[in-house]
């Protein structure tokens, strides 16, 4: 038996291809006769389109021009709700809405032409904030601007206020955040009535694009093909938006008689027009006993969805389910709403609603502890969820969780007690304008789709054996940097006891791979990885059933068995289809039950310095302790945590999307600031491994968890440093300054 690969940090499957500069991203691909395409957008946040003018000294007859009238099928981006068009026809609902598409061979002329398309739009009254939308200053979506709402009820929260020693209230806000994957979005399409539609692109979810393109052209599944190119980061930003760009490129190609069309967004267009994290506002009202027990929690959570529904109901759902955290509380009510504004639709971004509601909760509990005179770690310790207890949705926790031990480890690694004293003495001394603070957050993140979502998806993975015992994984789950190719190969190599080099993962191409679901929701390792394992074992079982392979075998026997099977049967394939584990029972009507098969659990600690002259905050040290089940690849898992923490430090302190009249006005990397290599602290990552029965080798999800905890831990540390309560992020210097009463 070869040494197990799971748990070992094997080399990245496509690593050297990436370091040689040979990996092929969409803009590295050129097709003969290819045109370039651009999008012309409304600029008016809401209005009725009266006309389109093509002006200036532009040879318009050389251009391929597409408007809504040219769409052969249905003008709607199929996802959850059929409200968003590919191209605005009569009305526009946000300033970046696409109205006209242009294509030409000359990119320079194309840019010139884009500036000479003018629209006559009669403006209609817009809304731009959660409060204005809730107040219905203008009704811009449906009857009341509310796209989706949820209500979670556990116990009788109305009865607890009277018997509480403390009823503590607070309001918290989070801003929009740009995913800022470093590769801008882009797609190439080749489309004609004769050949159907093929798109190649930078994307996370091939079958989402596939699903959106079929009705756009009125084509059956086998006439639409979606191929993922090497993708330079996604973080949720390439979950739904590639459908839009793919549709646009394909419409241009269709009109241009099947010539291939490439649309690559420049950074400014990508930042302002594509989806960002939903801004949020959360209100908490919490009943506590004198000794710090949580008696009741009432939470009102609202997110700004932007102009169209896109994925907002699901983002809202995850934010809602995570809003009461990993705590024991018998009486909980969570109301949540996603409301419309005339900004571009907000969408998926790592964490998917949970970073917003967890920020509010973990800030709130810290403040409540202060009000009770308890330490923040002690208040949490007294309420940590234990195995057998229930979450807000009344999900009984079956996992062998040990939150107190995660908390202990985080306190130990951060030298919590010693540093608390040291920082307090430093701050008291008054010798230094720089104040120091320590803050923590305790949180969880559900792996996989919520509730019955995974059974609706019914994901399928295939495995195929080739000559010499080679095995190819067939799945639509994409490698976007997180390590899909590598962990799938580790799982197969271990399951079949064959060398890692014998395993390859097919390029996601809807004409070749089955639908293993979208690459989202921390589901690829846990859900799809398990299917990969099952499909691989299916190959072995077929070989054994046919008498080609014995109970024990070595590499050579495996290779020979495959060859002999192929000689006789031509192909050797196996498939695995997802089935919900028996403990996952969910009721969509009452919003109760097992929201997730498993959770990642974590305790994070941040140490900060705040300069009381400039009010700049710097994170000096960061400790991230988590249980993500079995760790499949220690280096990649740590990489996910380090990268997630870095992104969350940006969310907490730096990344400020300034929307004016629905338009992002700081769509550049110089005025929308993400952390650079000199802005980050050491990020110290620790795992406590508690294997999960239904994950491959015991693994759970890790991708999103690290996005949830850093912002509240950092803001709690700011309060520890200054004694000033900042309740919104990003905590820019002026925000902290204002909270400190200095503005």
């Amino acid at each position: 038996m070869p040494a197990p690969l799971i748990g070992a940090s094997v080399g990245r499957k496509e690593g050297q291809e990436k370091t040689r500069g040979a990996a092929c991203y969409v803009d590295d691909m050129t097709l003969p006769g290819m045109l370039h395409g651009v999008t012309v957008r409304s600029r008016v946040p809401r209005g009725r389109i009266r006309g389109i003018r093509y002006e200036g000294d532009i040879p318009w007859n050389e251009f391929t021009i597409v408007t809504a009238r040219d769409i052969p099928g249905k003008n709607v981006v199929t996802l959850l709700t059929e409200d968003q068009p590919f191209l605005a026809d009569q009305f526009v609902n946000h300033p970046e809405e696409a109205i006209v598409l242009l294509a030409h061979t000359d990119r320079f002329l194309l840019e010139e032409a884009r500036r000479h398309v003018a629209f006559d739009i009669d403006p209609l009254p817009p809304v731009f904030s959660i409060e204005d939308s809730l107040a219905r200053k203008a009704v811009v979506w449906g009857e009341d601007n509310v796209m989706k709402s949820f209500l979670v009820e556990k116990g009788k929260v109305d009865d607890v206020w009277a018997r509480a020693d403390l009823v503590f209230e607070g309001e918290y806000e989070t801003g929009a955040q740009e995913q800022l994957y470093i590769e801008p979005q882009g797609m190439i399409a080749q489309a004609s009535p004769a050949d159907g539609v093929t798109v190649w692109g930078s994307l996370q979810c091939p079958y989402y694009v596939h699903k959106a393109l079929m009705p756009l052209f009125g084509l059956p599944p086998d006439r639409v093909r979606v191929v993922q190119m090497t993708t330079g980061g996604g973080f949720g930003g390439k979950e739904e938006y590639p459908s839009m760009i793919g549709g646009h490129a394909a419409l241009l190609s269709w009109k241009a008689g099947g010539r291939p069309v490439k649309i690559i967004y420049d950074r400014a267009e990508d930042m302002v027009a594509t989806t960002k994290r939903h801004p949020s506002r959360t209100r908490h009202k919490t009943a506590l006993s004198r000794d710090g027990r949580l008696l009741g929690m009432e939470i009102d959570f609202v997110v700004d969805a932007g102009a169209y529904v896109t994925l907002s109901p699901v983002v809202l759902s995850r934010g809602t389910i995570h809003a009461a955290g990993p705590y024991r509380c018998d009486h909980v009510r969570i109301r949540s709403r996603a409301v419309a504004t005339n900004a571009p639709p907000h969408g998926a971004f790592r964490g998917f609603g949970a970073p917003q509601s967890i920020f509010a909760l973990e800030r709130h509990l810290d403040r409540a502890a202060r009000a009770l005179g308890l330490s923040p770690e002690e208040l949490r310790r007294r309420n940590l969820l234990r195995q057998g207890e229930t979450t807000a949705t009344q999900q009984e926790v079956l996992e062998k969780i040990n939150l107190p031990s995660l908390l202990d480890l985080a306190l130990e690694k951060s030298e919590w007690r010693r540093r608390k004293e040291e920082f307090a003495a430093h701050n008291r001394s008054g010798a230094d304008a720089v104040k120091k603070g320590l803050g923590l957050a305790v949180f969880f993140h559900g792996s996989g789709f919520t509730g019955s979502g995974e059974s609706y998806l019914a994901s399928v993975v295939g495995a195929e054996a080739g000559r010499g015992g080679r095995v190819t994984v067939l799945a639509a789950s994409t490698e976007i940097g997180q390590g899909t190719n590598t962990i799938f190969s580790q799982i197969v190599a271990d399951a079949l006891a064959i060398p890692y080099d014998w395993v390859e993962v097919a390029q996601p191409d809807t004409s070749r791979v089955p639908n293993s679901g979208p690459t989202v929701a921390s589901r690829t390792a846990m859900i799809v990885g398990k299917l990969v394992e099952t499909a691989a074992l299916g190959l072995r079982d077929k070989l054994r059933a046919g008498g080609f392979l014995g109970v024990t075998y070595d590499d050579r026997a495996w290779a020979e068995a495959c060859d002999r099977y192929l000689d006789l049967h031509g192909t050797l394939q196996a498939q695995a289809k997802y089935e919900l584990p028996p403990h996952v029972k969910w009721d969509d009507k009452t919003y109760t039950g097992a929201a997730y098969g498993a959770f990642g659990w974590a305790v994070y600690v941040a140490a900060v310095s705040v300069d009381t002259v400039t009010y700049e905050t710097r994170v000096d040290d960061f400790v991230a302790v988590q249980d993500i089940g079995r760790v499949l690849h220690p280096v990649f898992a740590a990489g996910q945590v380090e990268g997630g923490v870095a992104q969350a430090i940006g969310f907490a302190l730096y990344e400020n999307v300034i929307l004016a009249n629905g338009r992002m006005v700081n769509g550049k990397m110089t005025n929308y600031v993400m952390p650079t290599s000199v802005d980050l602290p050491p990020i110290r990552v620790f795992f406590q491994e508690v294997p999960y029965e239904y994950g491959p080798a015991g693994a759970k999800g890790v991708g999103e968890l690290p996005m949830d905890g850093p912002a509240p831990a950092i803001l709690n540390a700011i309060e520890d440093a200054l004694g000033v309560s900042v309740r919104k992020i990003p905590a820019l210097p002026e925000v902290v300054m204002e909270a400190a009463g200095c503005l």
Partner: protein
Amino acid sequence: MPDKLLMRFRVNGEPQEVAVRVEKTLLEVLREDLGLTGTKHGCELGECGMCAVAIGGRPILSCLALAVECQDQEITTVEGLAKDGRLDPLQETFAALGAAQCGYCTPAFLVTARALLDRDPHPSRKTIAKALSGALCRCTGYLKIFEAVEEAMLKATAPGAAHASPPPASTPGAPAPSTAPSPAPGGSPA
């Protein structure tokens, strides 16, 4: 001024002669005229650092340089880091130590780190962080990148250190458009 100028320069050790539109940046000429697509664009405004190439061993942003400014220069792109079919140690350590995740920023970090190590073979962590601060990475939080640079530095100074191992014959799982014509491959190193 004519629309196009004839440019002569050396790229990855090979002489190149190409007629370029005068308004084209070095980045555009490398990617579009020479097919060296290993160098990436991320903003084309000099903000993200993705387009770093070395001119005479110094990293520059190729999106801010007009190609016509580079007459007679010696340019190194990521495709030129491997020598005699052997990978630069940085190319190995970035692949092995989790420094390349999505990989899009990797060429820029490699070119910049190579310039650093050539200038200063034993940089401190702080020097590394500063030298690389002009390039943005959204995946890693930079820590694995620092570790990969340090590991390459150790490899280079280890007694009897050879110049890494040859590149793999093939990269299984490497996506390539299956029916489309091949995209421009990386230039072969001299």
